[in-house]
């Protein structure tokens, strides 16, 4: 239950060691991406936010960027800004520096254009990469895992094999003293009362119900009832009978441990064990929220095969669909189709997922990392673009 990881000076543990080149505003994305393309071990985080937003969202974008920079999979950070954005760049830099890691900055307007910013930024990124390249991996334990959960492109197999098996790996992680984050609040709908009962106390349970109410109210404000019509006609044809059953199939990946706390989007857990984080189901925003919360590994179950990875957090793809395992093999890391075929039990599959998590934490690459399909990223905002 050990793995070799990068222990940072704030105590958090990285499973990867990158220079994070973080764009602080949509307008700086191209410079950040170009810098990262020039330096090995540098990865870019780009997004569509950071300006012309409501004050609440500007604060949120700054908070998420700060969380991303603090993620232990980044050994050092280069912030790339335009210069006139709303993002609180200086504050983001300070908050990341507080973890003890080195933070450098380039501003496109101050340097006089993108060409100069790319040159200056590339020199800095190379210097940072040399510096963090000397950081060693040292023995860490499953208690140092911060595991994010995700499912996507689900099918009939999802609720029967990969999600319950991942739930068992979640339980093993929690029993080992690690942290697991359950997001995708939309998936709770219909089973939120059950999830709330799994909270450690009524107050935490109430927060879970509030998250669902908030998300439904936001959708309703645009005239959309996201609870109606569930399960869909296709779900019923596939064998799902009630909305409770559908949602339980999705949240089965969280296992059986009590929920210790409920957090805002991108907020770092302050407790160990299973926690819930406000987040939507869509991949770029969910994966970004998990990374900002400090996840060092993410497990992503899929039925039909979802390709998305993230720039600096390994995303392990798990399917229970035998055909997907073969047809989408450039995206699938682990198959638990044996549970469906009848050759493997759920606890065996759960144990195998847990072993894979530890191996990936120690540096084993995921398919998404090997193919560079790692750019599912954006910050989840609530208000309009103005």
């Amino acid at each position: 239950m050990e793995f070799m990881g990068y222990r940072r000076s704030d105590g958090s543990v990285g499973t990867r060691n990158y220079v994070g080149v973080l764009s602080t505003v949509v307008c700086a994305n191209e410079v950040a991406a170009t810098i990262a393309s020039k330096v090995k071990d540098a990865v870019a985080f780009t997004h569509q936010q950071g300006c012309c937003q409501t004050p609440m969202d500007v604060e949120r974008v700054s908070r998420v960027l700060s969380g991303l920079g603090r993620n232990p999979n980044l050994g050092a950070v280069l912030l790339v800004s335009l210069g006139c954005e709303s993002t609180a760049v200086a504050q983001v830099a300070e908050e990341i520096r507080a973890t003890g890691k080195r933070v450098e900055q380039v501003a496109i307007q101050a340097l006089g254009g993108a060409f100069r910013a790319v040159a200056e930024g590339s020199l800095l990124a190379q210097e940072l990469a040399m510096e963090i390249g000397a950081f060693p991996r040292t023995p860490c334990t499953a208690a140092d895992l911060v595991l994010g959960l995700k499912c996507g492109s689900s099918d009939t197999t999802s609720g029967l094999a990969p999600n319950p098996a991942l739930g068992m790996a979640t339980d093993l992680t929690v029993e080992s003293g690690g942290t697991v984050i359950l997001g995708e609040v939309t998936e709770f709908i219909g089973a939120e009362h059950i999830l709330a009962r799994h909270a450690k106390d009524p107050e935490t349970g109430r927060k879970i119900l509030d998250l669902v109410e908030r998300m439904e109210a936001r959708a309703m404000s645009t005239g959309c009832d996201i609870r109606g019509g569930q399960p869909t006609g296709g779900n019923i044809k596939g064998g799902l009978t009630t909305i409770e059953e559908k949602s339980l199939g999705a949240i089965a990946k969280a296992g059986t441990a009590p929920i210790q706390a409920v957090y805002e989007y991108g907020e770092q857990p302050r407790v160990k064990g299973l926690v819930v984080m406000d987040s939507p189901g869509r991949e770029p925003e969910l994966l970004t929220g998990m990374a900002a919360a400090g996840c060092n590994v993410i497990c992503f179950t899929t039925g039909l095969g979802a390709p998305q990875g993230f720039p600096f957090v390994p995303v392990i793809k798990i399917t229970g669909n035998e055909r997907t395992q073969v047809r989408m093999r450039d995206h699938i890391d682990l198959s638990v189709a044996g549970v469906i075929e009848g050759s493997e039990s759920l606890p065996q599959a759960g144990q195998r997922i847990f072993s894979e998590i530890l191996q990936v934490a120690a540096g084993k690459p995921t398919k998404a990392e090997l193919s560079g399909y790692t750019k599912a990223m954006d910050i989840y905002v609530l208000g309009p673009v103005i």
Partner: protein
Amino acid sequence: MKRDAILLRPEDNVATALRDLLPGNVAVVGIMEDCREVAMTQAVNYGHKFAVADIANGEDIIKYGEVIGRATAAIPAGAHAHVHNIESLRGRGDR
């Protein structure tokens, strides 16, 4: 052992078919590391559920160890359990 269906938690009263099952089949139902046999009384397609023991009208339907709905008719062991004999306690999608 080869399994024909899966019971996700030992306390569940419905199993999910992992292949198309016919009346008269004896389905091997996997429960964690163990198995039990259920004599099928109705055809149940892949992905659909059936009762692993007799369920009375009005009884809770348990899957994932949780209540996923309530029986609206008696469901004998080995019979198809779906929207025709189960209702949600939270509202249904098909009406």
